[in-house]
């Protein structure tokens, strides 16, 4: 596995994935979407998720589902930094022969758990993954899904949120990257929507690694967990 010169524990952008991100060009429109997730992804992969290239298919691994599939440069950079694939693939980003598209495909990229890009699929798939792990008697693996605040507009997410709370899916974790991109916003705050459905929820600074680590690892017995990571608002497109 390549060395990782990340800066866990600080609030600065981790250096290694930032360097790797710069190798990908051609989707600048998605740049803000990608940088919004970089710190949270790094904390997850560097300190929280129990998954590695060697156990990318192990039944007992933690699952990370990138639902917000647009702007996957930070995701690819973190996966490359953690050795899931060679960084030499990064400059080919989006080209015909590259496995790395502007939306990820699980059948093409090692370590990618779902193909995504169309918003609103990841959380229902994560709910099903938790139920499947339960059905197989696998209580250890945790399932994480990353969605955006505007992605939360999709009704499919609300079907999943409303079900997962009462069902007590403790293995389920939703990370909402909130860059205030939802046109109509979320009066009362995003976390309150999850709490009303019976989730454990917390809002943190999406650039503060220690705050995120604490929120990601807080116990939440018998309930699914939502962490809303607030980052700077998306600049006008």
């Amino acid at each position, binding site marked *: 596995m390549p060395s990782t010169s990340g800066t866990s524990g600080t609030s600065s952008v981790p250096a290694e994935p930032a360097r790797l991100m710069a190798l990908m060009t051609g989707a600048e429109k998605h740049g803000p979407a990608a940088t919004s997730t970089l710190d949270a992804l790094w904390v997850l992969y560097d300190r929280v998720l129990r998954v590695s290239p060697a156990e990318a298919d192990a039944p007992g691994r933690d699952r990370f589902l990138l639902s917000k599939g647009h702007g996957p440069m930070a995701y690819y950079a973190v996966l490359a930094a953690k050795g899931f694939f060679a960084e030499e693939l990064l400059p080919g980003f989006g080209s015909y022969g590259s496995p790395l598209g502007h939306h990820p495909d699980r059948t093409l990229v090692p370590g990618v758990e779902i193909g995504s890009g169309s918003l609103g699929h990841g959380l229902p*798939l994560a709910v099903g993954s938790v139920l*499947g792990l339960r*059905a197989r008697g696998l209580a250890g693996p945790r399932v994480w899904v990353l969605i955006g605040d505007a992605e939360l507009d999709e009704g*499919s997410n609300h079907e999943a949120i409303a079900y997962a709370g009462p069902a007590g899916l403790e293995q389920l974790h939703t990370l909402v990257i909130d860059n205030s991109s939802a046109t109509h916003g979320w009066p009362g705050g995003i976390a309150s929507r999850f709490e009303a459905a019976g989730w454990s929820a917390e809002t943190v600074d999406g650039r503060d690694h220690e705050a995120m680590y604490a929120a990601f690892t807080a116990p939440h017995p018998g309930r699914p967990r939502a962490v809303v990571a607030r980052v700077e608002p998306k600049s006008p497109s």
Partner: protein
Amino acid sequence: MDTMRDRFIATATRLLDEDPRLAVVLAEISRDGFDEAARRHPDRLINVGIREQLLIGVGGGLALAGVRPIVHTFAAFLVERPFEQVKLDFGHQGVGGVLVSAGGSYDWPAGGFTHMAPGDVALMDTLDGWAVHVPGHPDEAEALLRHAAAGDGRDYVRLSLQSNSRARPLIPAEGRTGTGTGTGFRAGFATVREGRGAVVIAVGPMLDNVLAATEGLDTTVLYATTVRPFDGEALRRAVAALTGDAADVVLVEPYLAGTSTAAANDALPTTPHRVLGLGVARRELRAYGELADHLAGHGLDPRSLRERITTFLAR
């Protein structure tokens, strides 16, 4: 006689006992029938409530976690409403599952068009790698469901209150390896009657009406319970036995007319032929009533079928 849906509930309940790899996912529909299964297998009988997008997403997630999902509700809510989930959460993820619908094209005519799904098979036809099973009898529904559950491909099983008077044995399609890497079993088109003038393919519950409609006509009748993959080999064999310069092929399907016309044409790329695709019309009848009323309303009762088939063959 029990209905196909009754048989599905009984069979899926037994399958949960027999195969720990399986889970059943519901969205309230048929919930009461699965009470006993829910008690015996609380982790593998999942009811997500009235949430059809979640229903399909959960099915895909179960498959990603190594469980084979059997996902069930009315066809309108299983295929049409969450169609993008069907497309992406199974096919695009590269995972398999068994979708089992009820209600068909007009099983509950008094319920009106909101509960009718004549376009479901045509929609599934836009996707890659789905086997489509259209049983014509509860016994066939059980057999097809068991084959689908034992495999690991993508299977759509379309159940209906329409039924033929008796079940036919399912025959394996020649040279089929299936769409997944599972059992590989796919039911082929069975020859029910042999003739020299034309080939009529009856899909699932249309067989009895087709047999009645073609009584005394010099036609081969093929019976299809698995319509995708389309058994082109069986059609070619039947066409080869016809007399005349060009083959006449009639399809009678219990869903949208013409759904399999392209598949029949594709099976005969070098044979001069004509195809008549009969089935449910796009036009809403905007009428309630009984199933028989709708069969007649769409020209699928024996008398209408005979008239439409003989008119086509006389041209």
